[in-house]
């Protein structure tokens, strides 16, 4: 890679087939190095760690063994563990996808009342930590005094509690419900980009609405849906909050909880080696899914339909029962999602938890909120949290934009490498990533600060960010950028002044998505916790274990409100912008 310059001062001449400007070259190589450090290095640490003997800490100089693999492969429970993991991941993703598709169809293709509100709410739900839902559901469904159980028992005069959150089924359903917003947002993007004349053509051919749905709409959405499903399954395989608080009792450990239990037990030494070896299997599983993902994405290229200029989405008019049913479905979902939140809100009002009743209302107070706020630590927690999600999401989005640009616009070997690298974190269990980061930054001044968590989140959410930005970039005609280049704009200027402003709504949406996920993530903050880097998610977890239920609930509510206050206005702004454009 040599750069030669002509003598002319105004002429910047380079010799590098792919990158025709020095800035671009520098950025590309910088990105590649960054991605390798951020992603390939943790993978290496993961593999190295998996060969450590039980109880050894990485870098302690202990000799390497195959014991962990041996114990996993010969352990009688391994097969069951994998099967359970897959059932959980596939099951919950299926629920998420099916509901996500239904809602996306209703809001994008029918005249369902309150479509915009649904869209905005869906985005806001994403910001609610899975933990919050988990705790809420436990309060609602536990066999002891779960509100629903108590009510159903009273109404039907039952002896036994009819529901329990502590079962594989409940775990799957609860996780599935939580996955709906993510699925919804991805699917509605697909629907928006579909040429409605494909459906019209079938309608004119004499097909009924149902046949069209079955024979045209569904198959057309299949590749896109499949790739979304694979993505969801991957995140579900690694999802550990809910399996932790529900699955343990249900005695249904999955891979992610096994890793966590090995890496962060309650006594003895963490078995990093075993955790990493599990992680390697998880990575292999995710890698296989990733392979499928790329196959599917590739296949879906040819499904991308040419759209004529008569593109004008038409809304299906819902009639009578259809409308009632649709409203019930959407309303039901939101009610279902609201219940755990309301339960927590209720719990936050009392010094100790009581079953909801009017009698109890007399004792309600905001004492827990005041208590939480009066603690000196709270200020630091808030600062840390804000710092964490603002910087990690902003940096992740900036990186995603650049990586996607190289992957989509420039292609070639380096583009593909970046695409693959940026997607790889999906295959690395977060906890393993956290261990790796701890190792990597131990001797740096970053150790123990919030910045290590920021780096972890950037690495984790890069995969989503690049997927989203890839999608946005593909839709933008590259002539728009070429026009800037030919106008004499440098590469940076063409991105800054032309490309990014055009895909601004996508950027903002992606940013919000990462904000929401970064604010709710527990794995990194918990694993890398020190005195100075507590964030709200860890504070919630600590309080729950304290135990301080009202405090926990109060913190949860404050987090949800704060995130909603951020998400909802931006969503309204974006909706408004979209409407103006149409």
């Amino acid at each position, binding site marked *: 890679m040599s750069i030669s310059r002509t003598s002319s001062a105004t002429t910047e001449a380079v010799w590098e087939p792919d990158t025709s400007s020095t800035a671009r070259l520098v950025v590309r190589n910088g990105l590649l190095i960054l991605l390798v450090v951020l992603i390939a290095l943790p993978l290496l640490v993961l593999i190295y760690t998996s060969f450590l003997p039980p109880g050894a800490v990485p870098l302690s100089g202990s000799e390497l063994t195959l014991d962990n693999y041996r114990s996993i492969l010969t352990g009688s429970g391994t097969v069951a563990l994998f099967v359970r993991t897959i059932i959980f991941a596939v099951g919950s993703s299926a629920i998420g996808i099916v509901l996500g598709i239904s809602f996306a169809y209703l809001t994008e293709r029918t005249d369902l009342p309150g479509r915009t509100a649904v869209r905005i709410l869906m985005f806001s739900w994403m910001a609610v930590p899975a933990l919050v839902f988990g705790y809420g559901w436990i309060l609602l469904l536990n066999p002891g005094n779960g509100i629903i159980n108590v009510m159903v028992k009273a109404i039907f005069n039952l002896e036994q509690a009819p529901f329990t959150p502590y079962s594989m089924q409940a775990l799957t359903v609860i996780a599935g419900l939580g996955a709906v917003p993510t699925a919804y947002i991805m699917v509605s993007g697909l629907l928006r980009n579909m040429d409605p004349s494909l459906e019209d053509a079938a309608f004119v051919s004499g097909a009924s609405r149902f046949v069209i749905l079955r024979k045209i709409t569904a198959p057309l959405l299949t590749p896109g849906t499949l790739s979304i499903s694979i993505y969801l399954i991957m995140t579900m395989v690694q999802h550990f909050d809910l399996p932790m608080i529900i699955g343990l009792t249900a*005695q249904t450990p999955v891979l992610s909880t096994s890793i966590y239990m090995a890496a962060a037990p309650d006594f*003895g030494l963490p078995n990093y080696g075993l955790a990493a070896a599990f992680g390697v299997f998880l990575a292999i599983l995710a890698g296989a899914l990733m392979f499928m993902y790329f196959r599917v994405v590739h296949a879906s290229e040819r499904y991308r339909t040419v759209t004529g200029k008569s593109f004008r989405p038409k809304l299906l008019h819902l009639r009578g029962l259809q409308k009632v049913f649709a409203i019930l479905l959407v309303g039901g979902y939101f009610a279902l999602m609201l219940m755990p939140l309301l339960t927590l809100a209720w719990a936050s009002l009392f010094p100790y938890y009581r079953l909801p009743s009017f009698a109890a209302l007399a004792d309600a107070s905001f004492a827990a909120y005041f208590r939480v706020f009066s603690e000196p630590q709270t200020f630091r927690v808030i600062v840390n949290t804000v710092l964490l999600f603002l910087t990690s999401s902003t940096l992740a989005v900036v990186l995603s934009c650049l990586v996607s640009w190289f992957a989509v616009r420039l292609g070639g070997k380096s583009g593909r490498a970046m695409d693959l690298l940026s997607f790889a974190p999906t295959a690395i269990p977060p906890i393993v990533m956290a261990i790796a980061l701890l190792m990597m930054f131990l001797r740096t001044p970053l150790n123990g600060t919030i910045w290590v968590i920021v780096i972890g989140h950037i690495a984790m959410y890069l995969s989503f960010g690049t997927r989203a930005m890839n999608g946005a970039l593909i839709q933008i005609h590259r002539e728009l950028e070429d026009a800037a280049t030919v106008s004499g704009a440098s590469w940076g200027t063409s991105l800054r002044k032309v490309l990014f402003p055009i895909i601004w709504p996508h950027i903002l949406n992606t940013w919000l998505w990462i904000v929401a996920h970064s604010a709710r993530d527990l794995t990194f903050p918990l694993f890398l916790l020190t005195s100075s880097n507590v964030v709200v998610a860890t504070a919630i977890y600590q309080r729950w274990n304290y135990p301080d239920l009202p405090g926990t609930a109060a913190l949860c509510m404050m987090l949800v409100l704060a995130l909603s206050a951020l998400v909802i206005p931006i969503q309204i702004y974006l909706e408004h912008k979209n409407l103006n454009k149409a």
Partner: protein
Amino acid sequence: ETAAGTNFDEILAGAKTEGKLTVWGSFPQKTETHAALIKAFNERFGLETQLEWVPNPPITSNSRALTEKAGGGSVSMDIIAGSSMEDTVLMADQGLITKFPWTEVFGEQLPAIKDLEEQMFDEYRDVALPYYVIAYGFGWNPNFIDDADVPETYDDLLDPKWKGKIGFNSFFAPININSYVIGYDGAVEYAKALFANQPVFEKGTLAVQNAVISGAVPFGVINSIGAFTSERTGEPLKFKLPSDIIALSNLHIYVPEGAPHPNTARLFTAWMAVEGATVGDAYEPMVRPGDKSADLVRMIEERVAATGAKVSQVSGPEDLETSERVNKTLADIVAGK
């Protein structure tokens, strides 16, 4: 970083220059307690130390310290507080903590330190100090279960009528401690029977207590600290010791190798173990091991006298070995192996 002193004066002098202290510990819990402790400590020794208390469980602190040490640097914390005897021994074996002549150095200012040292068994006499004692028992929510119905013994928990209704620590405490009385085989057999009764696992004994208070389970196996705390706050929780086995566990406080403020750390550790409970108990229940006057000790004596319950407490390295085996086996069972 200051050099670690070898006698009280050096340590005190060192502490004066250090001025900071980072403690990673799960007990005591409240920030008010932490504030009161450092205030009393500073007054006692004429210091102006600032305390940073990170409420991490000992296992997190231990593994972090080990990792940091292996990584070749100093560790993040000055003091780790809350480890069981099992974990303390493990850390000593890993070289994270080394022997220190506590009585020799601090015996004059804090005479009771000698009693505490004697609670450690010989091989590990000087590596750490016990500063907390907890007893396991049954906690229940009187709103959901009548006092009379609450099980009396561990065997009562196996009754099928409690299926799915018992709150239990997901890391199986105190079955491992009970093994000192019932042996490895007895503990494993018991655990299998208990798991078949589908207890509601919560991550940690305190989480079990939480579930009981919220009514998610009518009762569960909890420990005395939490029980006493709830008693003070008026939460709907009652506590009693089992009539067959009373599991006791000491929690320990120690200074890891490479602590950034070794002098303050030593001084605070010694003071905390000896006098901390007296100061802290005003804010949350704290019971110093060997404090004959404590309520807990009286409760245990009464229970033993009334029912003949056996007290199960670690008494030597062979016990630790047993409990480690139990833990491993149970983990395998739960993992489905």
